[in-house]
């Protein structure tokens, strides 16, 4: 790892990280502020009972007790919207590093210095990881901070247990996005390929509720290991799921190293 390149990559993306962080905080505030009203609507549980059970899986909610703060935040935020926002951040980051630097020609400047390709990939991957950790921590601190300010009863251990889960999910996505960044010439294709695979994993998870084949295949997708409602409810870090997500990340990262070490670098 090259510390200077790591710092430069983080610095290049700090504006983007700040914008995404700010956007997440705004969304968190909106969601949290909505919760007391939602909780107090009479008959909301009966209404939700009428929704197909599997439909709620689309929003990451397995339980029908959506009036709990944890389930509400999952359904409104962490189950889908938050994933979309942070995935956009990860894809933008992955687009701008290897493939973006080759496309812009700056990789030639970088590789004309005494720095190995291994070091370039590692430094830039760690910069993505730093961005991911920042956004996940900002999200959770926002939820518990705004929640506490609004007098909502919060199961802190549950939300803090979500931090490693959120980080590992995004690292898994970053792993294959980085691989696409080392494989493809056009940065736009990096985004399309990464977004396509993420969507495919998500649809596989959703389809698993209705289709047995998809349910069996779901273990090969990342969203099988992402169940925010259960983590927040129980306050337990699901070690098995974390390891599975980290395995996705490790495979993507290792493959990126192998590919980039052999790749021609020319704009």
């Amino acid at each position: 790892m090259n510390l200077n390149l790591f710092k430069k990559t983080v610095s290049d993306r700090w504006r983007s990280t700040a914008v995404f962080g700010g956007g997440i905080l705004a969304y968190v505030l909106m969601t949290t502020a909505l919760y007391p009203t939602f909780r107090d609507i009479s008959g909301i549980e009966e209404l939700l009972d009428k929704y197909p059970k599997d439909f709620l899986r689309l929003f990451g909610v397995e339980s029908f007790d959506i009036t709990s703060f944890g389930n509400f935040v999952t359904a409104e935020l962490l189950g889908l919207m938050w994933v979309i926002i942070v995935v956009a951040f990860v894809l933008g980051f992955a687009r701008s590093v290897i493939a973006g630097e080759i496309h812009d020609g700056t990789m030639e400047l970088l590789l004309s210095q005494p720095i190995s390709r291994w070091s370039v990939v590692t430094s830039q991957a760690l910069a993505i990881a730093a961005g991911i950790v920042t956004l996940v921590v900002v999200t959770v601190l926002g939820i518990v901070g705004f929640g506490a300010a609004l007098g909502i009863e919060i199961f802190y251990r549950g939300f803090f247990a979500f931090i490693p889960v959120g980080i590992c999910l995004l690292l898994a996505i970053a792993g294959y996005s980085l691989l696409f960044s080392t494989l493809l010439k056009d940065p736009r294709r990096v985004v399309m390929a990464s977004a396509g695979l993420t969507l495919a994993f998500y649809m596989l998870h959703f389809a698993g509720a209705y289709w047995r084949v998809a349910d069996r295949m779901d273990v090969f997708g990342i969203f099988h290991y992402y169940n925010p409602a259960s983590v927040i409810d129980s306050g337990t870090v699901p070690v098995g799921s974390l390891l599975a997500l980290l395995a996705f990340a490790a495979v993507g990262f290792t493959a990126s190293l192998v590919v980039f070490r052999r790749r021609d670098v020319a704009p």
Partner: protein
Amino acid sequence: MPETVIHTEGLTKYYGKVVGVQDLDLEVFQGELFGFLGPNGAGKTTTIRLIMGMLKPNRGSASVKGLDAWQKSVDVKRLVGYLPGEPALYPRMTGEELVRFVDSFDGGREASGRALAARLELDLDRKVEGYSRGMKQKLAIVLALMKDPPLLIMDEPTNGLDPITQHVLYEILNERREGGTTVLFSSHNLPEVERLADRVGIIRAGTLVGTERIEDLRGKHLRNVEVIYAADPPDGIDRVEGVSGFERAGNRIQLKFRGDLNSLLGVLTGRELLDLSIGHASLEDAFLEFYGREGGETR
């Protein structure tokens, strides 16, 4: 025998089915300024990128001071200052920040970078996105030269530079050569190569057609000659060895000449002259002449 700094052997690179360079054997020696000459798309940049370890050869190898350019890429980069053909620099950084960033890989050369920038009259306080084409080229030159490497590899170094800055760069390169630095630079500008290089390699369609000492090339390349006489021109000008394209219109003659100028001038000055001009033929003419007559012999 001077030490070999750059050595390529059977160096071959394909882009799909298109030949980038093929079976390129090249040696550049310690302390020489080697000009790599060829038209656009001939394979100059591909060769340079192979030597820099940016591209992986399909066949053959390139080495710098005995270090394989692909396998020992990091070690090679410690020895080389590199100026790409179309330098791409981080647009949001200032020149100063870029100098510091590049310096962070080797260390201790910031002052040298600032001194070079001052010599090239480059303002390092501005952001790169606000630089003109020429200023970006100057900054890229500073980044390549600042660590005072034993080997400089420069792809079209005077691209986008004004004549004054070109002159400053020529001075710097000559100083570096005198200090023992080896320089490989590519160009399609024949007078520039003539002015700077000790030896020149000519590449066409991915193949090294030949390498020549610059004095030998000078003797070979084509010149346009135009003479106006006070009266009739002397006889036998068109029979001088090396004369081609001879045309006469009254007292005025035009011809192309390739060879030792003294032999031609001996004949031309046999009568009273009103005017004489001798200029370099266009690069294209020189190439066509060179390739046409000797392309198959020089390898």
